[in-house]
């Protein structure tokens, strides 16, 4: 039976329309779930992919006695979710502001502002779910804040590098920049050991960006970084830094560099520069203060360089310590050419090679150089480590300039032996003095003694390494005897004398080249020496760039750098327990030297 009041045309039209609609929807479903399936699956899994990065704790840096020089602490980045914040807690905001040391208006504003304009349209407001209140909140403050129980106020832990001793050994330690990247010093050099292995977790997250642990696919725990033990000794370093600041105060030079090391092992006990900086606040000082000038700054070494030609001449058996050199001649006949010899400050006449060193005769040194000849002089310069990096490993070390004999001009052979026409770093001069102190064997300078793990177990030991033999042991002894006389009543470094100890050393006073000429007012005063001379325990090099002297006096190496050597050495004597030489022995030696 069919009703009669509905026209079949209208009745079936509706059914057709509905059928078509359903077909459309079915087609759409097919499109979405079959053809577009891969595309959407990719998009969705990308949106869900949750990669949680877990920062590894960076290892510590300690000195040779284990005191902490750089460490990593956990700090809290504190913030608030304005939407979770409840009005009932608004009274506690003042307390929060006090704990955070912030203005309470600022905290109030962070809590109240709940939306941010996302750009297009009137209704384009995005909720703010996190406002940072403070970057580095320490753990105890954070616990107090949690005790307040304000809803929506919470923090995330992060690592922060701390240098507890501020300026202490900053040039050696270096620092991490704001991104946590190692920038210089040991931080950069040993970054591979210190940084550890960051961990990560791969899982999925839900629409609120929270991790869904049930879908975690990869879990890799962070491995804590290893710690590094330096050869630096805190006590020595402290004394050295006192000395640096004393020189900075007294002479207000452009810069000061002091290096102290053990000659037998090459381990550096202290390395300091002025001006210095606090690695915690590395941004607050000019960038040039960051420079580890012991390695980066070049100067003409001057008289400290004289040990090289003299050592070479002794080693090549061209001269002996008591051979006489005529320092009254002003020219030297070499083949057809007459070379003008450099002047001495005081006319010295005919003196022995020993006295050339003791009195620091320029003319004498030039003649030693001439007897050696360019090739040999050059090769000994190389052997003593000039013109190449010491490979200490810190960033920015420079090679200096040591020209090959083929590039020398006519005067170089007479000027190089007195430390002109060559540029060096304080570290290179220090290295050459170490070789003399170590019986002629050059050790590779080192800052790191070992790398160890959390349980203080050594992972990688750094053993002392010899680089090469530079001069014979006997020659080294002869040379050090000469250097002892420098630090004697007749020498140029009387200021470095220590009662009861034999100190060997060489001063250097270099005129700086200003406007293409050697200046009479701008000097680099330096001293490099070791003690006790017969059993060297420490080599100390002090370089002072442009000391400003009172009443127009000259900043000689002996008067500016020498006292620093003495001050540091005195501290080492008590600290390392270095025994004074029996008086008889020193007397015997004095007689032998004919003093």
């Amino acid at each position, binding site marked *: 039976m069919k009703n009669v009041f509905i026209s079949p045309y209208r*009745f079936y039209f509706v059914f057709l329309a509905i059928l078509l609609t359903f077909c459309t929807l*079915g087609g759409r*479903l097919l499109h*979405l779930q079959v053809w*577009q399936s891969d595309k959407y*699956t990719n998009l969705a899994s990308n949106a869900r992919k949750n990669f949680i990065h877990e920062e590894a704790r960076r290892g510590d840096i300690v000195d040779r006695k284990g005191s902490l020089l750089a460490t990593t602490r956990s700090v809290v980045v504190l913030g608030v979710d304005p939407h979770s914040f409840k009005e009932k807690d608004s009274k506690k905001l003042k307390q929060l502001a006090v704990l955070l040391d912030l203005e309470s208006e600022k905290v109030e504003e962070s809590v109240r502002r709940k939306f941010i304009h996302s750009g297009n*349209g009137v*209704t384009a407001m995005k909720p703010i779910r996190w406002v940072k209140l403070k970057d580095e909140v320490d753990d105890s403050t954070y616990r107090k804040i949690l005790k307040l129980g304000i809803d929506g106020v919470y923090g995330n832990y992060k690592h922060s590098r701390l240098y507890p001793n501020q300026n202490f050994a900053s040039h050696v330690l270096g620092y991490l920049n704001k991104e946590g990247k190692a920038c210089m010093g040991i931080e950069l050099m040993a970054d591979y050991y210190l940084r550890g292995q960051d961990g990560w977790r791969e899982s999925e997250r839900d629409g609120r960006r929270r991790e869904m642990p049930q879908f975690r696919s990869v879990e890799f725990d962070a491995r804590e970084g290893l710690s590094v033990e330096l050869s630096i000794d805190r006590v020595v370093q402290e004394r050295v830094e006192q000395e640096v600041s004393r020189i900075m105060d007294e002479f207000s030079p452009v810069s000061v560099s002091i290096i102290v090391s053990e000659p037998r092992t090459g381990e550096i006990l202290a390395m300091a520069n002025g001006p210095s900086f606090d690695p915690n606040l590395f941004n607050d000082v000019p960038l040039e203060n960051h420079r580890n000038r012991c390695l980066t700054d070049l100067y003409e070494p001057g008289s400290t360089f004289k040990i090289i030609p003299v050592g070479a001449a002794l080693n090549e058996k061209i001269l002996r310590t008591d051979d006489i050199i005529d320092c009254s001649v002003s020219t030297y006949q070499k083949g057809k050419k007459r070379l003008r010899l450099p002047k001495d400050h005081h006319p010295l006449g005919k003196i022995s090679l020993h006295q050339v060193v003791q009195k620091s005769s320029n003319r004498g040194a030039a003649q030693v150089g001439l007897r050696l000849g360019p090739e040999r002089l050059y090769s000994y310069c190389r052997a003593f480590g000039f013109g190449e990096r010491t490979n200490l490993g810190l960033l920015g070390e420079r090679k200096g300039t040591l020209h090959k004999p083929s590039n020398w001009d006519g005067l170089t052979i007479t000027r190089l032996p007195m430390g002109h026409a060559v540029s060096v770093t304080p570290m290179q001069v220090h290295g050459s003095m170490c070789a003399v102190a170590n019986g002629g064997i050059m050790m590779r300078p080192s800052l790191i003694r070992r790398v160890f793990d959390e349980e203080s177990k050594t992972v990688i030991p750094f053993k002392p390494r010899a680089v090469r033999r530079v001069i014979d042991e006997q020659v080294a002894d002869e040379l050090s005897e000469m250097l002892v006389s420098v630090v004697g009543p007749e020498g140029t470094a009387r200021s470095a004398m220590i009662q009861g100890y034999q100190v060997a050393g060489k001063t250097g006073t270099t005129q700086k080249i200003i406007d293409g000429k050697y200046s009479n007012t701008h000097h680099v005063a330096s001293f490099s020496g070791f003690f006790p001379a017969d059993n060297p325990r420490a080599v100390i090099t002090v370089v002072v760039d442009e000391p400003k002297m009172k009443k127009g006096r000259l900043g000689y190496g002996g008067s500016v750098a020498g006292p620093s050597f003495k001050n540091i050495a005195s501290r080492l004597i008590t600290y390392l327990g270095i025994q004074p030489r029996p008086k008889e022995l020193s007397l015997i030696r004095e007689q032998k030297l004919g003093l």
Partner: protein
Amino acid sequence: MIGLVMLFSAGAVRGAQDLLVKQVVWVLISLAVGGYVSFVDLDWLRNRTYIIFALCLLGLVLTLVPGIGVKVNGAQRWIGLGSLRVQPSEFAKIGLVLLLAKYFADKQREIGSFVQGFFIPSLIIGSVCVLILLQPDFGTCFLCGAVGATLLFQAGVGLRWLLPVAGFAVAAFSILVYFDPVRIRRVTSFLDVEANANDSAYQLWQGMLAFGVGGIEGVGLGMGRQQMYFLPEAHTDFIFPVIGEELGLLTTISILLTFLLLFFSVGLKLRQVSRMHEYLLAMGALLFVVLQAIINIGVVTGCLPTKGMSLPFISYGGSNLVVTFVFVGLVINVMRKKDNPSPIQAREL
């Protein structure tokens, strides 16, 4: 059943058991109401049409009264009755169907005239639509308009009036949408889903992703991830994408076919109904259920601009479920009647 199972999964992050228990209670209530409606005397109902319609209108008006109407998400759609919230627009659907059915049954002879055959029924539909529009609830308004127009069309109202008015209605609707910033953004973002994926079309985009992830076989019941806060309305309006993700194309197509089958099997039989009133009643009820399903699926698959519209039988929500079952009850009632025609009673002359 599918509805309950899916709800349990979709609502997983929102206290599934709580939702499930609530919905079971609603299903029981709905079944009871639907069952009652399927046995109610249609002539008795016919005589009370005006009262019911008036109550529905009153309800719609009340939602607009501040203090009584409850505002949620910027739309005033609910009346608060203590802890319970009722959505009068849902019940207005019943009223509309009842009134239109009675009206056309009474005025079968005047169907050709402009005033009685077209103007007055349009007025009835219009009044309901406008009141719902004021809430504003564009989806339900559109649904009521569409069902009303289809009933007019079926009842035999002249096309010369129907077509221009339909055109006018579409134009007016467009203008209203155009000047409503929320709606226009929904429409424009619907046209470019990917570009607006993080913004106004976020929900739609996530829904489409869910379908894509599901593929043909789905990822498995309870394994879907899109409801994990990616889809804000996973248990109500956007339950279909969750089904699509977890159970795949096979199930979504089955659901689509079920609705189609429901419409065809019941609809085609309705042709045999002997009385105009009962026919229109059942047809209106059926259209409401099926069109709502069409709109919902259209929206979540990105075929139609986003509207708040739940999927009949499946989405979470009390009012809609009750009304859906009332419609089912009505259809069953009419079908029963068709199989057992009431004896022709002698009327008083």
